[in-house]
């Protein structure tokens, strides 16, 4: 009975912790509450399952493993750079998925016959979701980390489809066929391996800018795998934890898809709907501007906004953004940051980077809040973003990004786009922002350009 009460407390703590995590003022408390709830549940389980028959070796092993794992986790999380956050989240997610696969296989191996179809299906689904989350997250990690991977080809998609069909067929035949105890371990092993392969081939074709969707989805998959483990071990806290994670992942996935005006299927298919193959290469007339000119332009502004994108993360320019804000403040200029929901490689990526650079939360503005008042900005600096400020998304029905909500930087009095070169955005669509009379392009590395601007502002 007391065990049930402890479990109840833990479950309530998880829900409450997650609730707090949605509130900026109490998010830190929420994280602590969730962590404490999990630790309580772990201790309760360990006590409930150890009796006089439990060898001291097993207990020592358990404690040792948990301490060791905690130290690894701590060291890992302390060392990671904030720009590498998507990679770290992917790796941790992969570990959770791997854990689900190991648990399922081990349960069948050690406990022998599975006596109900319900448990069988639970095991199968646990293997499928866990396996896909494991290898999928590993491939996502390698993509995010810029590791060399095979170029996405059509064949990958076909392999993924075949694997998916195979897994569905095995699951269906298991449901229909009369119980066959002997074959189940082999069946589970086969389907787990298929899921591991599926994770690889399903993730390979997905492009960099779609990473926010992919990471959210993989997170949801691990949640479902945890949920299945909860059913397998008849453990309510695992169940609730798994569902909360699954719900969070799914919610973020749909939000990210909405922010790109694409369906989940479209993202998973791994490509924008064929962007007209031959993009009309009417040479764009670009109006360049130098860093020095930019500085003197900014000095005469009242209100300026920065639109950061993945390019800012690549250039590691977040600290220079903070320095620019400080410098402009001394020149009497207000600097805001406008963030698109899918900017970067994971949901909220830009917010974390700006927070790391000490940029106050008060100067960070949501896309929807900024769009209505864009004309009040004297200048907008676009740093390493492209598709999210492309007006074609609003006025060119033939464009493949048409319908995607964008930051209406073009409505500001002056737009300056910082670019490395003339490369197109992720979608490969021509950015019609450059055609606008109020748009100029500042070529060069974002970090160096910002430093030049700051130095110039100091002299003004």
């Amino acid at each position: 009975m007391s065990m049930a009460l402890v479990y109840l407390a833990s479950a309530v703590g998880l829900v409450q912790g997650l609730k707090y995590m949605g509130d900026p003022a109490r998010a830190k408390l929420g994280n602590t509450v969730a962590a404490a709830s999990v630790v309580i549940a772990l201790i309760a389980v360990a006590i409930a399952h150890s009796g006089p028959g439990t060898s001291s070796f097993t207990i020592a092993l358990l404690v040792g493993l948990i301490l060791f794992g905690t130290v690894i986790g701590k060291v890992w999380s302390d060392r990671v750079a904030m720009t590498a956050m998507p990679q770290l989240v992917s790796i941790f997610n992969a570990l959770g998925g791997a854990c689900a696969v190991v648990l399922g296989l081990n349960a069948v191996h050690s406990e022998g016959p599975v006596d109900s179809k319900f448990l069988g299906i639970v095991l199968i689904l646990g293997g499928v979701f866990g396996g896909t989350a494991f290898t999928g997250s590993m491939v996502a990690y390698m993509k995010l980390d810029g590791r060399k991977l095979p170029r996405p080809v059509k064949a990958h998609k076909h392999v993924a489809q075949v694997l998916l069909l195979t897994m569905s067929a095995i699951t269906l035949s298991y449901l229909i066929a009369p119980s066959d105890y002997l074959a189940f371990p082999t069946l589970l092993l086969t389907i787990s391996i298929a899921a591991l392969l599926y994770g690889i081939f399903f993730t390979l074709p997905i492009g960099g800018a779609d990473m926010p969707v992919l990471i959210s989805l993989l997170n949801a998959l691990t949640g479902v795998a945890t949920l299945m483990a909860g059913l397998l071990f008849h453990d309510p806290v695992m169940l609730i934890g798994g569902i909360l994670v699954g719900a969070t992942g799914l919610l973020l996935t749909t939000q990210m898809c909405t922010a790109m005006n694409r369906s989940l299927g479209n993202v998973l298919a791994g490509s924008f709907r064929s962007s007209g193959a031959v993009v009309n290469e009417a040479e764009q007339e670009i109006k360049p501007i130098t860093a020095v000119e930019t500085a003197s332009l900014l000095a005469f502004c009242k209100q300026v906004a920065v639109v950061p994108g993945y390019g800012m993360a690549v250039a590691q320019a977040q600290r220079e953004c903070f320095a620019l804000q400080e410098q402009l403040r001394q020149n009497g200029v207000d600097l805001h940051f406008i963030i698109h929901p899918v900017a970067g490689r994971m949901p909220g990526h830009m917010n974390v980077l700006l927070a790391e650079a000490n940029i106050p939360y008060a100067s960070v503005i949501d896309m929807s809040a900024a769009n209505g008042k864009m004309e009040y900005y004297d200048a907008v600096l676009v740093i390493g973003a492209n598709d999210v400020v492309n007006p074609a998304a609003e006025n060119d029905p033939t464009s493949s990004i048409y319908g995607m909500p964008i930051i209406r930087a073009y409505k500001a009095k002056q737009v300056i786009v910082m670019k490395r070169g003339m490369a197109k955005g992720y979608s490969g669509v021509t950015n019609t922002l450059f055609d606008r009379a109020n748009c100029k392009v500042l070529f060069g590395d974002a970090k160096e350009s910002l430093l030049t601007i700051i130095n110039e502002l100091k002299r003004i």
Partner: protein
Amino acid sequence: MDFSYSITPIDGLFVVALSLLLGFEVIKNIPAVLHTPLMSGSNAISGIILIGGIIQLLNTTAESPWTMAAASLAVLLGTVNMAGGFFVTHRMLSMFSVKRKPANGPRP
């Protein structure tokens, strides 16, 4: 296996259905600034799967070394997932200063 506290499959389905609704309700309106911490925090919560590893580990003996090794692996994987996730979320949230309210954009 003797579970001191466990639930039947039907109870499980009840829990699944109700907490799914609850989950969506709890996290429905989360500001973008918290998306990354929410994701890494929920990722840490999914490390709770290590409970399964603990149950397996405590219910095997040295006579079945493979089962024990696999359970140990599961415990280790789950712990790193969980501990690392909570630590990094804490680190991230420590960076957010929320003394002032977010701005509403420029003034005319």
